[in-house]
């Protein structure tokens, strides 16, 4: 186990180093940050001054060497735009994103797994077919469209829920959290639903496929013959084995939403991380882009690791070695 953890840790370092290098090369191909940051009529002297202040006046190779040295000292650089450490900017926005993503993934799992089991166990009923068609609709519905429809219906027409922002927050250890106030919860509902819908559909279909596969196997027949109740067969024997692909995808989707929930965040003016990435790309805020994508790759490696450990819990036959 310990050896396994060390191995994964080394892998993580390698992945992050490669990602950082690739991203560093690519951000150098984006527009000139000085030109983007300064007003369009800025003089060449002003531009030169700005470039020097941002450390862009040396060759890319020199910049890369400096970047590596700084990273090894734990310094990912200051944002060109905000003149604050890039990591601080990302972490400031992280609680907001985690709130909607955790809620969305929770809603998705809560609905998708029981429905998936039902549809997998009774594939030919009318209800199952309706659920499946509906899930297809959910998968193919564009997020931005669905989010705006929700706003128009629930905020503008009905006036039940607020259209945007975080509402009243409570500050806990420096983190601003919405889910602890009623007003904040009202603000959370629409963005969380928008994020949940696609996840829900994907997980439902995965659970169904897994169930159909597992239910055909001999040990299920054996369990039924033994006289185990239909409910225990489905949820005790079958579901556990059907869950492996669901957990894998669940983990990856969770990571994906945390770092790339940009569209939903933009529609609901939710001050999360995803918006930061897009804004930084638009204005070539290189330190933030690099720090962000390094963090994203780290997150995925960690999530994969957790998923691997969960495998052994769900299916003891799987061995980490």
């Amino acid at each position, binding site marked *: 186990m310990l050896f396994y953890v060390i191995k994964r840790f080394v892998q993580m370092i390698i992945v992050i180093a490669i990602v950082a290098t690739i991203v560093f090369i690519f951000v150098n191909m984006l527009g000139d940050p000085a030109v983007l940051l300064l007003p369009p009529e800025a003089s060449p002297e002003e531009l030169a001054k700005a470039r020097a202040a941002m450390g862009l006046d040396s060759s890319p190779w020199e910049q890369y060497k400096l970047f590596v040295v700084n990273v090894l000292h734990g310094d990912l650089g200051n944002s060109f735009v905000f003149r604050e450490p890039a990591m601080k900017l990302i972490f400031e926005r992280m609680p907001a994103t985690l709130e909607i993503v955790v809620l969305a993934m929770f809603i998705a799992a809560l609905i998708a797994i029981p429905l998936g089991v039902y549809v997998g166990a009774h594939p030919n009923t009318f209800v199952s077919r309706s659920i499946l068609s509906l899930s297809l609709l959910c998968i193919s519905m564009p997020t931005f469209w669905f989010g705006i429809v929700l706003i128009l219906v629930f905020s503008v027409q009905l006036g039940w829920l607020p*259209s945007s922002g975080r509402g009243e927050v409570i500050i806990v250890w420096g983190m601003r959290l919405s889910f602890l106030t009623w007003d904040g919860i009202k603000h959370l509902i629409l963005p969380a639903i928008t994020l949940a819908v696609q996840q829900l559909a994907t997980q439902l279909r995965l659970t169904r496929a897994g169930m159909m596969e597992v239910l055909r196997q001999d040990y299920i027949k054996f369990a039924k013959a033994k006289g185990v109740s239909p409910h225990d067969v489905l949820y005790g024997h079958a579901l556990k084995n059907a869950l492996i692909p669901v957990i894998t995808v669940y983990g990856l989707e969770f990571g994906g939403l945390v770092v790339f929930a940009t569209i939903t965040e933009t529609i609901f003016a939710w001050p999360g991380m995803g918006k930061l990435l897009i804004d930084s790309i638009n204005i070539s805020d290189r330190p933030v882009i690099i720090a962000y994508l390094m963090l994203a790759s780290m997150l995925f490696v960690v999530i994969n690791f957790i998923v691997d450990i969960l495998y052994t819990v769900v299916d003891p036959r799987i061995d980490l070695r």
Partner: protein
Amino acid sequence: MKRIFILMLAVAMLVFCGASAMAAPTRAETLVIGTTGDATTIDPHASNSMWSNNITINVFDPLVRKVFDKEGKFTLVPSLATKWEQKSDTIWILTLREGVKFHNGDPFTADDVVFSIKRYKDSTTGGAGFVQPIASALALDTYKVQIRTHAPYAILVLDMADIYISSKKHFEKVGEEGVLKQPVGTGPYKFVEWIKEDHITLDANDKYWGTKPNIKRAIMRPLKNDATRVAALLSGEVDLIYNVPVRDIDRVARGANTEVKAIPGPDVMHINIDVTRQKTPGYKNGKNPFLDPRVREAFAIAIDRDSIIRNVYGGHAYPTGQLPIPGAYGYVESIKPYPYNPEKARQLLKEAGYPNGFEFVWDVPQQRYFNDGPCSQAIAGFLAKVGIKAKLNMIPSNQYLSYINPGDKTTAFYGASGTGKGDIGYWYNRMFYTRDKKEGAGGSNRTHYSNPTVDKLLDEADSTADVKVRKAKLEEVTKILYQDYAIIPIYQYEEPYGLVKGLDFTPRVDAFIFDVNTMQKK
């Protein structure tokens, strides 16, 4: 089960120990503004970004304040400077307002003015442009400042409207980082908090030296997505929004509690073309066709501006034939948009030796300006009708300026010019002065325009201390550019604001659009 319950209780207790609830403002006394982006900094001297400027104008006082009327014309009224006298061509003496106090209680003096100008100068992130013509500032006594300009500069007062004063003492106490956390000005509103991408809160300064603020609290929320911004206004969550998208203007105007206020904005969209170089990068078959004024004229009159404005902008734009906007120094009343005349354009091309037209590369940005894609395609369509084939070279917004900036890759590009300051001289100097001839001029002359008469007129405009002379010279340049077809202006933007009924709001045509102290809520 019991264990889990105790654990949850413990977590809940921890959470509430660390929690601190925020005081809720009353909605009726609060003005909530929906903007299209977040501020980049709250340091007034560090940048010239629109949404940072909108904190600046409320928290700080300028030396001179611009007051706008319903038509978008402005008058200059004394603010922190009560008097300004010109001692010589380059020396001005400002008399400052006495008895003004910063939000932290420090008295306002000449040292703060000198300090603020120096901070602008030292900015590497765009602030330096505000004080570019100023060479030095010197405190003569507690309430007198001497300002020296590099050269005679007639419109220093206009610049003074964009110079905001922060406290020197406060800066010395808290340093660069402290200023970024808590800006301290003399303005009608005090800074409360800035939660990035969420909101900025300002509270009324009850001890303000001027007109006491009517609105107790102002909150600015970045609502980047157009549909969200409109929805927030319609549902009553915000009171005022910037930039109502064209497709929603009718809806907001017809709303039960909402209305639209629209005025012509400071930006003029135009096409810059290379009219100077013999070989130009965007044309493959030899000599640059735009050297011939007849080709330029054909280009200018082939475009049906009215149709573009009607079909692409739903009628919410204004055709124009010049870069300065009405009211700005350099604007010439008698210049009308180039008339649409495709037959004459075809005739002119034939005379110029291009009976079958020609093809050139036109650089356009993707989503840098509002509706730039559809607009440039419509223009290309009109050009194609007379035989000029514009090959659109679409460049991502964030690479666009870098691409056209050196000016060596581009033959023609799509751009916007702003005269929010009220004077076109700065733009003309950057865009039309011959390159590499004079320091500080011609820096953005991406199409290599070079005309000794224009250079001379601009020199004269910049070396007079008389506003009237400057105006006349700049108007002369506007006329030459028009007759030369040196640049093809298309239209002036409209700036539509959406607001709740009962809000007294006058739009400003400059880079500081939300002066909350001029607004009233009923």
